[in-house]
């Protein structure tokens, strides 16, 4: 399959009062269409910074970002971004929250509204559309946040520790939900996480970054050889713990 996203020699330097810090150094990565890539690395290695750069929220110091053979230098409409918090606006109903992106981009037309309604129906939130965020569970809120992002029809989704604010049980459930939605909608995904098991259970590939300045240390293909793979059922396979041990060593937490 063809590459949808290419990162070429991405570097990021922060200028501060007491000098400059090199946060990312020479990151190279190609992501295929429809692929799910997890990125892990020791804390402070700049993995979230990398996502912010791809999203166009932060400037890179060097390098190129290419999406579908086109170099991008600012916020691209092809990219959706999901943060750790669901960031639903408490004063709006779920439906109004979901239309937020369309409203900001000034493309809230009948066609897109119908598309949004369809997504709500498909993913079990339609009957909650007139409720306010505080009336929904954490898992439902996260699903609503994903639908808000999907409404603007991104080709690539960036997940920045998107599940780490949830409690363990909800997290397993939401991971399952979101994985299915993303595979269903055939969205290419780049996920940053500090949770190795999450990275393995969702990723087609896992990218390991070194500690600061972050650069690609290793890339692992994840293959469970099971039909209808989901984050939950691949956790039960014996290969899962093999991957875990390999990545645990690769992260070098003990060092």
């Amino acid at each position, binding site marked *: 399959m063809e590459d949808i996203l290419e990162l070429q020699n991405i570097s990021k330097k922060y200028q501060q009062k007491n000098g400059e810090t090199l946060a990312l150094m020479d990151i190279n990565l190609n992501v295929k269409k429809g692929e799910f890539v997890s990125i892990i690395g020791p804390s402070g290695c700049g993995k979230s910074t990398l996502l912010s750069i791809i*999203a166009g*929220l932060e400037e890179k110091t060097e390098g190129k970002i290419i999406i579908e053979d086109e170099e991008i230098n600012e*916020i691209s*409409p092809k*990219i*959706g*971004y999901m*943060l*750790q*918090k669901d*960031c639903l*606006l408490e*004063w*709006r*109903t779920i*439906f*109004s929250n979901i239309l*937020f*992106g369309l*409203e*900001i*981009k000034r493309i809230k037309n009948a066609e897109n509204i119908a598309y949004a309604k369809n997504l709500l129906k498909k993913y079990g939130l339609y009957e909650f559309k007139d409720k*306010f965020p505080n009336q929904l569970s954490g898992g439902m809120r996260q699903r609503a946040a994903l639908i808000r*992002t999907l409404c*603007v029809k991104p080709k690539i989704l960036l997940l920045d520790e998107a599940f780490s604010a949830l409690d363990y049980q909800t997290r397993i459930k939401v991971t399952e939900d979101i994985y299915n939605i993303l595979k269903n909608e055939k969205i290419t995904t780049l996920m940053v996480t500090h949770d190795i098991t999450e990275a393995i259970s969702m990723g087609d590939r896992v990218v390991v970054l070194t500690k600061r300045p972050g650069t690609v240390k290793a890339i692992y293909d994840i293959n469970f050889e099971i039909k209808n793979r989901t984050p939950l059922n691949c956790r039960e396979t014996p290969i899962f713990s093999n991957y875990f041990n390999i990545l645990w060593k690769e992260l070098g937490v003990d060092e």
Partner: protein
Amino acid sequence: MSEERKRYLKKQKFEKILVLSTQIVILVTFLGLWEALANKGIIDSFITSSPSRIIKIFANFSSNNLLLHIRVTIYETLLGFSIGIVLGTIIAIILWWSNFLSKVFEPYLVVLNGLPKVALGPIIIIWVGAGTKAIIVMAIAISLIVTILEILNGFLNTDKEIIKMAKTFNANKFQILTKIVIPANISTFINSLKINIGLSLVGVISGEFLISKAGLGYLITYGGQVFKLDLVMSSIIILGIFAGVMYGAVALLEKTIINYRRINIK
């Protein structure tokens, strides 16, 4: 309904009644004691006034021109209050918009905030004349800086993650202001309304103290000078009632906004 639930509700109701009745008892005891002590001559009602004397003032308020003075004070307060809020909000928006300006003006705001604005009284009178205008300016001077600081602080503390979320959809600064920052700060806004009721009253009354032409502030100074303590006490009671009514109006506004949001956002 279970027995336990009934008991719980009963207890809740009892507590509510207890609080209210204690409040009434305190008020009645205070007024009763005041009246009795004045009546028996234990305290000098010439200096302390008494509830019955205050009622007498209210009973023939036309001869005291009370209504005129009340009207003047209400007019000045409402005008100072409104201008203070509107101007303060506009300046806060400008400072939020421009990081440069907010950095430049920060020390000035801090100093002006600490400065007792009453000290500006004579200057204000000389600049705008000893009249209603000066009193309104005084009310604005007292409430404006606090309003700016309060609202700006609320704006700057808006959840950064939510602003980031809006930015991922390529929101511009105006959209961030109108769709995130302002709606997220309605409670900040209501709070500064509440604070401003008291502050603009301070401004108006101290303005009337200095200028002494009309209004409850004038009545208080006048009453003090000619030892008509009944007049002073009556004016203070009216001020209390006025502040209470304004506070109630803001609370009503708050409720209305919350309800409006629940129904009308689609």
